């Protein structure tokens, strides 16, 4: 990355780096929140079919597994999507 080229910029190199990491962090947080919300919805539906008087240990085990599997699914889907995009790109050339 060539930081010296931005001479006319109002930002110094440090300021720019700070702004960039701030932007990235905010996006990461938003993304994590979105995923967490989806996990809560899906895993509640699949693991808590008969809500008891408390969250049983088998409920908790199911929720833990379910969350891990949701992240697995997200990664599998992401990989498939990215590979498809690359394939489409290769065909377009």
């Amino acid at each position, binding site marked *: 990355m060539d930081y010296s080229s931005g001479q006319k*910029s109002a930002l110094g190199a440090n300021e720019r780096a700070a702004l960039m990491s701030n932007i990235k962090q905010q996006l990461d947080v938003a993304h994590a929140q979105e995923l967490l919300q989806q996990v809560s919805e899906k895993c509640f539906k699949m693991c808590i079919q008969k809500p008891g008087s408390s969250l049983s240990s088998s409920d908790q085990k199911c929720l833990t597994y*379910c969350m891990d599997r949701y992240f697995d699914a997200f990664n599998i889907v992401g990989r498939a999507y990215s590979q498809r995009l690359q394939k*489409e790109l290769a065909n377009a050339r």
Partner: protein
Amino acid sequence: MDKLLETDPELARFVAEMEQTSRMKKTTEKLTLECWDLCITNPNVSRFDSKTESCLVNCVERFIDSSTYLVKEFSNKSQSVSSSSDFADSEMIIDDKFTLSPEPKLNEQEKKSSGFKFW
């Protein structure tokens, strides 16, 4: 911010890259939501079996096939009824829902940043 981006190509590049990454993550999130319901019958396992994994992959492929197919069908239709303003409105909905319009842009960037991470 706009003015800052004009005078700072490095920052502008970064922001464009972030926008593209976000778009891809959003699409992946949406696909995961849809394909989870279709493919996962039991999440209470220590790992997916190969059948579930290929279901997820097929789900993504067929979803993209379906939207591509529908866009083609749709443009055939809207050519024969091009005067109707209803179709112009619906086209916007397809853009929003299936995120087809940003994809060509995505592809260009994808070439450059090969080390893209989803998670």
